[in-house]
C-alpha cells in the first residue's frame, strides 16, 4: 500500500479510533513495513548468479536473476528481470517500488584476467542515464576495477530503473555472488 499522509485528529474522533488504528498500520506506516507484521524500510538487493557476457564496445543491460534473501529482508525472489519498476506502491519488493526518494547502489567487478582500460556502469531511469561511473584500468596489464554508483533517485509511478555496463578492450563475463549487485532502500515519499 502506498504512503498516505497521517490523519489530523480532532476531539470527538473516538468513534473512529479503532478503524484508524488499523488504517495507520496499512497506510502511513506501510512503507516502513515488509511482509506482515515486520517493520523496516522497503528494500531490495539483487545480483546475478550466472554468467552474462558483455561484448566489447557495447552497452549491455544487466539481467538480474536473483534477489538476496535474508530473514531481515523478507523479500520474495524474482526471476529474469532487468528493471525494477515503481508501479504506484505495493509490497512486491524489487519489482514494484514504493514512490518516493530511494537510495540506490550498484556496482560490478571488471575482469581480472585480461588487459583492459575502461569500464563503465550506468544507472538508468526510464531508459535514460541518470548517473555514470567510469573506471580506467592500467593498459596492457591485467587488473581489477570496480565501477560503482551510490546515489538518491526520485521515483513516481511507472518509473523503471535498470543498470548497464560498458567495456572497452575485451568481452567480459560477469557472474559471481558479489558482482554485479543492485540494491536500494526507500527513504521518504514524494
Amino acid at each position, binding site marked *: 500500500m502506498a504512503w498516505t499522509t497521517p490523519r489530523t485528529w480532532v476531539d470527538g474522533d473516538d468513534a473512529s479510533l479503532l478503524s484508524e488504528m488499523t488504517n495507520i498500520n496499512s497506510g502511513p506506516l506501510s512503507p516502513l513495513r515488509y511482509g506482515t507484521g515486520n517493520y523496516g524500510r522497503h528494500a531490495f538487493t539483487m545480483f546475478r548468479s550466472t554468467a552474462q557476457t558483455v561484448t566489447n564496445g557495447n552497452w549491455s543491460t544487466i539481467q538480474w536473476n536473483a534477489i538476496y534473501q535474508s530473514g531481515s529482508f523478507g523479500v520474495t525472489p524474482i526471476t529474469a528481470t532487468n528493471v525494477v519498476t515503481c508501479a504506484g506502491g505495493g509490497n512486491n519488493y524489487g519489482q514494484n517500488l514504493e514512490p518516493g526518494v530511494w537510495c540506490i547502489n550498484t556496482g560490478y567487478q571488471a575482469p581480472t584476467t585480461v588487459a583492459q582500460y575502461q569500464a563503465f556502469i550506468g544507472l538508468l531511469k526510464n531508459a535514460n*542515464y541518470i548517473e555514470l561511473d567510469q573506471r*580506467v584500468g592500467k593498459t596492457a596489464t591485467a587488473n581489477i576495477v570496480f565501477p560503482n554508483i551510490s*546515489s538518491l533517485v526520485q521515483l513516481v509511478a511507472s518509473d523503471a530503473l535498470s543498470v548497464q555496463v560498458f567495456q572497452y578492450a575485451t568481452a567480459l563475463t560477469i557472474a559471481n555472488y558479489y558482482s554485479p549487485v543492485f540494491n536500494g532502500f526507500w527513504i521518504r515519499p514524494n
Partner: protein
Amino acid sequence: MAWTAPHTWVVGELIDAATLNTEWRDNVKYLTSDIPAFRARHSVNQNVNNGATLTVAFDTTEFDFGSCKVSNTLWQASRAGVWRYSTTIGLTFDTTYTFFTVSVNTPVAGNFCRQSFVKRNNGTGEGGTTNLSGVVKCALNDQASVQVAHGDTNALVLNAVTAYIPIFTGYWMRDL
C-alpha cells in the same frame, strides 16, 4: 515539526486529539514524509586549474525536500542529525598521468569523505569518474560542499555529460 519523545499511555488516560496528532501524525511524518533530501547536478562544464581547488557548482536541483539548498555550491543540513551525502564527479583530461581528489566538506568534520582518483592515460584523452558517499554528524544548518583538487600540469575539465554528472545528493538519516 520537531520530534517528540514517544508517549507512554497509562490505563484510564484520556486519548485526546493533541496526543494523537503528536504521536501518530507528527512523529510519523517526522520519520518519513518530512525527511530532508536533495539531489542536484550541473549543466555545463567547470574547469579545475592546476594546483587549485574547485568548489563544485550544481545549478540544477532535481528535488530539494526540506529546503537544503543555500546556493549552487552549498547545501545545508536543514535538520540536525546524521546525514548521508554522495557525489559523482567526472573529468576529462589528456595528460599522460594525473590524479584528482574529491571531497565532501562540512564545518564539523572538514573533509569527512574524501577519495583520490588516478587516471593513467591511454593516449586518447578519456576522462574518468568517481563516486563517493559517507555519513557525517551535522548540527542544524551545517553546510556541505563538494570540492575537486588536482596537482598536475594542465587544467582539468569537470564534465557535465548530458544530465548525469556531476551529481550531489544528501538526506537526513536520524537525530543526534
